[in-house]
């Protein structure tokens, strides 16, 4: 079984179910997503540990004149993210399938298209193919906001389109330049395969501007400050299952892009702009955290906490240390696994207080809903990266990496750790505890909501006991991806020291 099947299966299923009778479309889409999850698990089961290189490689020439390959592969960088994607899409579609949607066939088709393109972006091993999937994956979300969104959906769509198109424009230019300049500077034929490009390092000046172009595209997508202008409206308008996968997965593609494309191809520029990137991440942590402190809307608390969390991930990546990269990769999975449940919970809360997502309309919901309260508690504690959750291990590794790279930045970043404790508990307490709000009707969470929520919380708990499951699968590839930049940044100066030695468990 090749990776092509995994990638195109969701789209194929989406096309098939568009022929299914209307009442059954949701059910069929949910089952289809579980089939995709099964396929992903089969890849996980066959994934060999201890290898840095690609596995399950598919490599065909796509456009020979341009040197573009249809090349797919799995390694430690994307195996965990593939799992995250299929899990989150399953949860979101199961959640969605119990609800009524306008034009359900088109609705579920967009989800299928989104899942296919995200999986494609994660698996792509050719720069042009990566860009194609990266842009493709936004299209279904334009429609999901524009057609099924709520509130200020027109404004939200416009903002999202403008931001992402500008980002995509930069990235497209950068990608073309990468291929063309690499072939120019080394006198080889045009080739966009990442493995080939990695052996054709660009000159320093080219690296610098290309790096900045990629950075803009990725930072918009995450988003980090000051590229987050679309965030509030976008997250607020998206239907819940769409925002769950958007925040859970799409944002990770951007972080993944740094690890897959930027660090290996532009190591010099990564070192050159390391401080800049760390500072952007640091500002985003502080800014996202203080926004989450005070925003009056439950969904926006989750949105701004995502800014802070993705900033932590960026911080880890640009520590240019193996610890930081490991933490970032683990945290991508962790954050996806907590942010999606949080959006489902926000939906459940809104259903209990007259549809409002404002915190002041909530309060005292825990009374008749102990199961909902417990699930919310677990997810909130994982969000604030309480030790004992895998999120803590992610943050621990990230901060350890930054600590080794730039001590002062690590120390300031710890403010974000304390702040997370406050905003996570704030949203929990104002929703579940204190006096009962005037429009609150507390009732236990039903099977419909549990179906999407419980599996995700289950995965969170399993990873809490055994984060090593992800760490040991990702370590070799991660170290290989970071190595060029790390060597340049001086982090590899002492190969026998504890910070560079790759200790593997016996």
């Amino acid at each position, binding site marked *: 079984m090749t990776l092509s099947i995994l990638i195109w299966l969701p789209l194929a299923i989406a096309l098939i179910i568009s022929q299914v009778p209307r009442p059954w479309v949701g059910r069929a889409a949910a089952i289809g997503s579980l089939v995709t999850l099964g396929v992903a698990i089969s890849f996980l089961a066959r994934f060999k540990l201890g290898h840095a290189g690609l596995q399950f490689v598919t490599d065909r020439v796509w456009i020979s004149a341009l040197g573009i390959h249809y090349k797919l592969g799995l390694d430690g960088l994307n195996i965990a993210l593939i799992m995250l994607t299929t899990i989150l899409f399953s949860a979101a579609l199961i959640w969605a399938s119990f609800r009524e949607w306008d034009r359900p066939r088109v609705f579920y088709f967009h989800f299928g298209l989104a899942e296919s393109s995200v999986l494609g972006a994660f698996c792509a091993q050719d720069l042009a193919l990566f860009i194609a999937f990266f842009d493709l994956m936004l299209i279904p979300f*334009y429609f999901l906001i524009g057609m099924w969104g709520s509130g200020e959906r027109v404004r939200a769509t416009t903002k999202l389109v403008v931001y992402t198109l500008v980002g995509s424009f930069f990235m497209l230019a950068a990608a073309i330049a990468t291929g063309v300049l690499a072939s120019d500077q080394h006198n080889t034929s045009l080739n966009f395969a990442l493995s080939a490009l990695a052996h054709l390092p660009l000159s320093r000046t080219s690296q610098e501007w290309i790096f900045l172009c990629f950075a803009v595209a990725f930072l918009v997508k995450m988003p980090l400050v000051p590229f987050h*202008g679309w965030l509030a409206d976008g997250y607020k308008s998206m239907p819940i299952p769409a925002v769950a996968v958007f925040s859970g997965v799409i944002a990770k593609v951007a972080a993944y892009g740094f690890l897959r494309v930027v660090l290996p191809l532009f190591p010099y520029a990564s070192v050159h702009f390391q401080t800049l990137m760390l500072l952007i991440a640091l500002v985003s942590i502080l800014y996202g955290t203080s*926004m989450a402190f*005070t925003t009056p809307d439950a969904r926006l608390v989750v949105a701004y906490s995502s800014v802070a969390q993705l900033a932590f991930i960026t911080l880890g990546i640009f520590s240019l240390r193996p610890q930081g990269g490991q933490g970032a990769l683990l945290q991508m999975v962790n954050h996806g696994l907590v942010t999606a449940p949080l959006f489902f919970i926000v939906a459940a809360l809104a259903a209990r207080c007259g549809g409002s997502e404002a915190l002041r309309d909530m309060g005292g919901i825990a009374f008749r809903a102990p199961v909902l309260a417990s699930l919310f508690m677990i997810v909130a504690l994982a969000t604030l990266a309480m030790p004992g959750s895998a999120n803590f291990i992610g943050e621990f590794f990230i901060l350890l990496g930054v600590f080794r790279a730039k001590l002062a930045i690590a120390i300031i970043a710890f403010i974000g750790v304390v702040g997370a404790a406050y905003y996570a508990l704030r949203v929990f307490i104002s929703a579940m505890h204190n006096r009962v709000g005037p429009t609150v009707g507390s009732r236990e969470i039903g099977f419909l909501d549990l179906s999407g929520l419980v599996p995700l919380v289950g995965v969170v708990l399993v990873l809490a006991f055994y984060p090593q499951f992800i760490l*040991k699968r990702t370590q070799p590839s991660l170290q290989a991806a970071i190595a060029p930049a790390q060597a340049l940044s001086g982090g590899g100066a002492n190969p026998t020291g504890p910070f560079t030695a790759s200790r593997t468990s016996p």
Partner: protein
Amino acid sequence: VSVTTSAWLVLLFPLLGTIVISAGYALLPGRLAGWIGTTAIGLAFVFSVITLITILGKSPDHRQFTSSLWDYAFSAGVDAKLQILVDPLSVFMILVVSGVSTMIHLYSVTYMTADRGFNRYFAYLNYFVLSMLLLVLAGNFVILIIGWAFVGAASYILISFWYRRTTATRAGIKAFVINVVGDVGLVLGTFFLFKHTGTVDFLKTFAEVDHVFAHNATDLVVACLLLLVGAFAKSAQVPLHTWLPDAMEGPTPVSALIHAATMVTAGVYLIARMHSLFEQAPTAADVGAIGGCLTMLLAATIALVQVDIKRVIAYSTMSQIGYMIMAVCVGAYAAGLFHLMTHAFFKALLFMAAGSIIGAMAGVQSLDRMGGFRKALPFTFACFLIGGLALSGLPPFSGWLSKDDILAFLDHRGGGFLILGIAGYFGAFLTGLYTFRMIFRAFLGDPVPEARELEEGHLHHADVPRNPMTGEEEDSDVGFPGPGHYIAEREWPMKVAMSVLAVGAVAAGVLEIPGVDRGVEKFLDPTFADSALSRRVPSTKADWIGLVIGALIAVGAVAVAYLVWVRRTQLAPALQKRFAAVYTFLWNKWYFDELIDVLVVRPSLWFGRVANSVLEPIVVSGAITNGTVSVVRAGSAAVRRLQTGFLRYYAAAIVVGMSGVALYFLISST
């Protein structure tokens, strides 16, 4: 069973208890959840004893065992396994923790009966004990931090157990956030150590310390100071102490648990566990000792003027923990841990007795409203008196031997430590004063109506319970204080729990009598074998001189208290008026809450509000977003059409094109 197997079982039973009670929260009838919880912790105690017996069977040089279940985070140089370390220190701690916690569970079975959250309560309580046991058994920094944070989370959910009270939720979040500050200290401290040792394992770290760090090396001092941040946050030492008095919002047995067996002792344990680091970084150790001393005095002075009976005991805890922190920072490990144990007994006892009075008062906690309960609550009075005598350090009670053990060591080290020792004796005087102020005001004097009713055999019930802090009507939907409330005189589980602890408070001192036996010290010796400081123990004669001085001070304090609050009752109000400024200062707890509010809380919330109301709409939405939009708009007409009407066609073209290509490759690649 081997030492480590039984230690794992100590962890397993509270874990099972937590899982069983939470899974069956809706099904478990009556008091069953309470009994399950008590049994779980009781079994943990049984296995702690088994661990003790097996470890005593080994030769003193071979009493250190590690065991790991699986790799927890073993990557990129970090070597964290799910690992425990069993040595005399951790065995000592699990004995105290599980032993006292069992009694607190037993007491709670009755005390919380009428609460609607009964099952929830016991799930939390089991989790709390599990966290503390994990903390003291941890074999590396990562697991230690996990136990550390679990304790913080458990205290949060128990402090805000009555979650409809806004005071309780506010106290809970405060405790949690301050504890996260402590966690951060611990994590950063770990980073500083890891930078040099390359390991998070305890034993490897301790073995490396002397090689990789020079005496008082900067990074080591910084690391130790950061560990102290963790210790101070958890042990409620100045300036990270403000959560502790507010934590009294939780049910009274929870206060007993936090103050006696778990949580606040964690800082003391941490410093004792890290003694090889602190001895190599004496600067940090001295800072810790001074911090402990300050807290000891500050809390004792505040306790003198507070009127909430639980808060007085809470400040007393802070003060007593100050003694322990001083002890373990100067090298008196055995003395500090011995005091930790005796304190666990008499402080749990005091809280339980206070809970009994509060039960009789139908939830009222103010000393101003109490009085004359001596006849109405004879058993409670006896227990409170025993606890108070032990706390004040009167011979022959356990607190006398343990506290003076610490002070004798301080005096023996001489120099600046002598000042700490003298401050300790002054603190002891204050301790006697505030303890007996509390006892005399609650139990002597004219009986209040509640006490009279009780003497006639009726238990007073409040018509409408009100929150003493805000005057809000209590929301008894979540059970505060519940339709029924209980006093020790009428309920055997409370009585049994208190009796056991009373015996401990009286007699635990026999374990460590200078010149007779040195049980605790001898048992703990293998853990501290590498410590130079712990060898510098005072002579038996010096110990006994210290004990005599301590006894005299305690007797003097009780006598003064008797004079002020029983014989000449007009004296206290007169003093209060005469020294109004001092009184206000102490009443407001040295203004620490206000200080933190001004320095930390307000600025961060202010920034958040500015970000939300100014930066976001004007800068981000206005300048950046609209700027980008207009730049794009001002671009070519094609671009404009692209992002308005033609977007769908553009999108559709991409979809169709990509799908076609994909289909082609799908077919050709399989």
